[in-house]
């Protein structure tokens, strides 16, 4: 397998993994929102906390992590753009 295929495969794996995190934090937690409201975080019912803050923090970390990992992957495979 050449390095392009490998790079793309790794990119897809990372993308898929992060999309799964995004999906769980948003839709799985949202689906069970009524069941998850019984315990509290920082004084908030958990489902309210997730929709108002928790999920947002997950998104920020997720996007930041993607940028960091992809930059590393680019350099590992020598894929970074040349300065033009």
């Amino acid at each position, binding site marked *: 397998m050449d390095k392009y295929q490998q*790079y793309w495969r790794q990119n897809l794996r990372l993308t898929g993994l*992060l999309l799964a995190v995004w999906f769980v934090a948003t*839709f799985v937690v*949202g689906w069970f929102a*009524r069941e998850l409201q019984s315990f509290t975080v920082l004084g908030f019912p958990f489902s309210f906390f997730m929709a108002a803050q928790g*999920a947002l923090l997950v998104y920020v970390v997720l996007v*930041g992590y*993607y940028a960091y990992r992809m930059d590393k992957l680019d350099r590992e495979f020598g894929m970074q753009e040349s300065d033009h």
Partner: protein
Amino acid sequence: MGASVQSHFVSQLKRYYAIYTGGVIGFIVLLSILEQMGVPNKVLGYIFLGVTVSMYAGIGILSRTSDVSEYYVAGRRVPAIFNGMATAADWMSAASFIGLAGTLYLSGYDGLAFVLGWTGGYCLVALLLAPYLRKFGHYTIPDFLGARYGGSLPRSIGVFAAILCSFTYVIAQIYGVGLIVSRFTGLDFGVGVFVGLGSILVCSFLGGMRAVTWTQVAQYVILIVAYLIPVIWLSVKHTGNPVPQVAYGYVLQQVTARENVLNDAATPEGAREAEVRAIFKQQRIVDEDKLKALEEGGANYLDAEREKRLHAVELLRAQHDADPKEIAAAENELAAFPKDVTSARNTWRAAVETDKAKSSPVIAHAEPFAGADEETRDNKRKNFLALVMCLMVGTAALPHILMRFYTTPSVKEARMSVFWSLLFICLLYITAPALAVLAKYDVYTLLVGSSFSELPSWVSAWAAVDKTLMSVTDINKDGIVQLAEITIGGDLIMLATPEIAGMPYVITALVAAGGLAAALSTADGLMLTIANTLSHDVYYKMIDPRAPTRRRLIISKSLLLMVAVLAAYITSFKPGDILFLVGAAFSLAASAFFPALALGIFWKRANKMGAVIGMVSGLGTCMVYMFITYPFFGVNAPLWWDINPISAGIFGMPVGFIGVIIGSLLTNAPSKEIQAMVDHVRYPNMRLDSFLENADHK
């Protein structure tokens, strides 16, 4: 461009915007000193709006340009962090700045669909689109569709969809501009629209994307300062903690405790609430009877009723000792009486809805999908998740946002700039739910239970401005305010926060300036998208590919002017529901663009036929569903699986995906050149010289 030139540019930018931010804070301090010296509020408001708007215009004039790359993509040298700020300002519209906290106040947990949808969409932008579009490196979104799928048909559909959703969205923004300008300066709504429009035009007309970018950065600073200051102040007032996002968890508990008291008829306060609710229950029966009589009697019934009221006025006027107040009340009733059957139906239906809401117990703020039975709750959950999905995918498909990622210097910076955008956006979206809860606490504890003779000053002030925003009526005549006697319009929450928190008038003016910045920056980005699409994709790519640079820019600028005037003209009719317009734009974008864009990058096999079928069927499904279900259009067909028309994209998106896949599989795989282009987009270092030569205009 050399690395050292770029780093010099970045440090210069940082210095300029640091000085600018200092200047903004100095300006606020200066105005509060003026306020202390007794300068009247109205003058302060004028100064505030005048100075900020002319500052944006000034940046626009300084960034004027006649270079194509500068005009369309700001020279592709906007550093990640600044592109993040510009995207955030581009993104956060009047609906976010003014409307969101109110929506959250009114609908509690269920309103959080907007918070989730408008932030989570950036995950899709980051993972699926932004880096690849940057690598593609052209000017517009239809550009990508045209190059990826070949031929002018996919491009034309892209142009149509881009204009459709941007135009729907821009009307909502100009509406917001008109509302803010007219409210804070006392100018007429129509004049407000054109004043706001003037400042949008100065900016984008002269400098295109370059001017819009640097103005949006400046507007972000104003809008975020304007949002945070009053909420922090309110948080300190209620909790002593200057970090509202942390502090409001405990305020939320107190709000929940208050809700329980007000819903419990065994407590004295709960009993008084029950009394008011009973009155509304009676009223509901009366209003429903009226509606029923209207459906049966039609215009005849309406005329007879109007006749009765006219008669009552005449009778009162004929009496010599009649109370002038009574006459005025009867005259008002006659004047407010609906003119025709349609308006009567709408007004009375709204009245029944109000009665229904006011006669039922307080809805718990923190409870997800509250409802009387399992079916209602399931329904709410379904619509909540569908709306979240539409808003998220719509975020990842709105051309004015995606276009911003063409402006960064590299793929790496494009990825980083999504991160910064999301961070800057989250700052506001994490604060909005806090504001809603803090304002609710204020209303539930300080306003409810207070006496009508000594209402807080902000209540009477806003009730005098606009009855739909704030009104309190002593329904059960006990002289004490009950929750069911208060009517609050969503927009009030943000607009009145400075007064609720007891802050000086300068902060109220600052909030107005922030709302204006939010509306202007979004309108800027949208109008530029429409004008660029028309001039670049339609004129340059399809009509006259040999057009010289100068003519292309002149065309673009005159189109901008026409779009602006047309948008303002339509807005002056006040086309109603802003939230629906905004939601519709997202559903339309999600159905039309997302499948073709995402599959264009991740599925090499996708071809022209697939794209055409996918985009047309997705967009078509979405438009048809909106048309047959949204009451405005008058068809009123039954809903599919109880999904509200605002989330029409939930049907359009899968149809779009299936369309792309089926259409592609039925026809031949795309050509070698196009497959090579997909590779070029996927790998940051890959150069596609022949491809670049064709595409990069000269």
